[in-house]
């Protein structure tokens, strides 16, 4: 039985359709870290808020622990949520913030103390108990918010971009910490983000959303290596997958799979092309090459290559070289539906 399940869940807004959700079917697995990934306005936050009970669905069902919860208020759903702003209660101390959900449940004083200490020790914030939220750093606030969410051992843990308010450096370490933490407590988590790096790094599975619909659900490797459609293919990866429209089909391959012939050979069939470099960007560890293909089925198409800097010798602007991509790395998309289709011959 899935912890959280949605069946044809739909939300229509009166004004405009930014953030709307269309017919979403979703099923979490026990203890997994599920990431909802999509650009802003794709409906991922709306979906999370419907699961939390903060937003009423227009149609469809939400199930928690196998029970339809559409008519239950947030407090009756046994969920916990970490908000983007953390939403710490500014007038309460850290300790009182953490025990607030327990008080609401009517847990007795001694038990409250015990559970708060347990949650705080998991996150290393015991020394902050008597502080007020405004006296905390961004990272500390995030931990308090997480502690408040886990303290009553919820059945599911909802997180709405909890790292977006941290600066870049802190975000990387907080990301790792949060992921480890979730593995340790083993509670199912649903995590909303627009940051693909976060999604790839943390998710057991990633749900890619766009315009209210789920485009693909799969492990990070699935969605990256086998994108279900052109949206997923270009939304993940930086620079995005090369998409080359041909007469009847769209051909896609990742820039890092399009390499100088000598570097690419690893066995298996390859497609070789003459690649005319127009300009390049040196990014330290790697080099991004922009150029066009000369000759063959992809003649005159603009593509990007991304190679390790260690293989950059001789790849100057204006020069032409033989590049290759493994046939297994080339994906095909239907021109009308933009969905994946069967591979075909390109020669």
């Amino acid at each position, binding site marked *: 039985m899935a912890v959280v399940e949605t069946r044809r869940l739909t939300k229509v807004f009166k004004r405009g359709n930014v953030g709307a959700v269309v017919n979403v079917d979703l099923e979490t697995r026990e203890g997994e870290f599920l990431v909802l990934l999509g650009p802003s306005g794709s409906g991922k936050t709306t979906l999370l808020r419907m699961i*939390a*009970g*903060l937003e009423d669905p227009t149609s469809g069902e939400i199930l928690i622990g196998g029970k339809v919860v559409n008519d239950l*208020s*947030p*407090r009756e759903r046994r*969920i*916990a*949520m970490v*908000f*983007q*702003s953390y*939403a710490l*209660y*500014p*007038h*309460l101390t850290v300790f009182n913030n953490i025990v*607030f*959900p327990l008080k*609401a*449940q009517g847990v007795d004083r001694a038990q409250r103390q015990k559970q708060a200490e347990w949650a705080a020790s998991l996150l290393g914030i015991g020394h902050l108990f008597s502080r007020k939220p*405004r006296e905390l750093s961004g990272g500390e606030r995030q931990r308090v918010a997480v502690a*408040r969410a886990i303290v*009553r051992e919820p059945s599911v843990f*909802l997180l709405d971009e909890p790292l977006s308010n941290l600066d870049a450096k802190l975000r990387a370490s907080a990301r790792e910490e949060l992921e480890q933490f979730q593995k340790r407590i083993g509670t199912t988590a649903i995590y909303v983000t627009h940051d693909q790096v976060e999604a790839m790094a943390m998710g057991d599975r990633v749900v890619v959303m766009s315009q209210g619909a789920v485009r693909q659900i799969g492990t990070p490797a699935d969605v990256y290596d086998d994108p279900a459609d052109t949206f997923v293919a270009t939304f993940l990866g930086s620079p995005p997958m090369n998409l080359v429209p041909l007469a009847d089909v769209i051909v896609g391959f990742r820039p890092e799979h399009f390499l100088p012939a000598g570097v690419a050979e690893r066995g298996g069939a390859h497609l070789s092309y003459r690649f005319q470099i127009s300009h390049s960007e040196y990014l330290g560890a790697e080099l991004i090459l922009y150029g066009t293909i000369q000759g063959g089925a992809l003649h005159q198409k603009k593509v990007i290559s991304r190679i390790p800097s260690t293989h950059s010798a001789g790849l100057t602007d204006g020069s032409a070289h033989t590049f290759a991509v493994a046939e297994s790395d080339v994906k095909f998309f239907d021109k009308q539906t933009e969905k994946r289709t069967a591979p075909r011959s390109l020669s």
Partner: protein
Amino acid sequence: MRQQRWLGPAMFIPAILYIVILVGVPFVMAFVYSVGDVKVGSEGYHFVGLHNFASVLKSPTFLLAVRNSFIFTISSQILVLIGATMLSMALQEAFPGRRFFRFLILLPWVAPVSIGSIGWKWILDSLYSVINWVLVRVHLVKQFEAPVWLGEPKLAMISVILVHTWHMLPFATVILLAGLTAIPKDIVEAAAVDGAGFFRTRFQIILPMMLPIINVAVLFGAIFTFTDMTVIYILTRGGPYDSTQVLPSLAFFTGILGSDLAEGAAISIFLVPLLVIAAWLVLRSAHRAEVT
């Protein structure tokens, strides 16, 4: 940049002068009068020390007025606070007709208070009071035993308190509304997810977060109430038997109508301690706003 050195003062000094002449000087004069023997029509001034204060303090009317002032201010502010808190929470969310409701609810504050009070004087009329008409119809009182709202000491006090509450409630409500709107939606939602119900959310989250703004509303409300005499002047003129006499109205009757400027000034000087406390609280809240 040399121009700037005199431009600043040149721009604000006229305003400051105006205020100093028409607030600062009379403020000092009030103290000077209170220790002198000025009367309307008399030219000279003799220092009489604390004589006026002594005679004021001996007057039973004065002591009654002090007591009434506190009863009037404290009870009306308690009522305002309770009413405004409920009303602001009921008005916070958008609902059809909200603008109209807001306009209607604001009228008692924005209409000139003397005018609103006259309306109430008619509603509380000794013979034709509509309230009494209803009370008689529902058989709560008999026709000839109907309450004389403004004619019996206790009822008169209750009436002026209620009318003043009616006048001040909108002001406190809109201030609290401003405070409510400033509470992030996230916090309220977090409370819902954390399992807090209707009352826990209101009493343990929203109300404590509104405290600073409630302080502001009560502070201004208390100052405006303690120093005002309009409602009382219109409804009862301090009567019957001084039962609704407050400090400002007593100062008016003594100093202006009674022509005893010195004693009137001495009475109004008793407003000053409260103002000093209020000013200190305003400064403190302004200072705290800068710190956080």
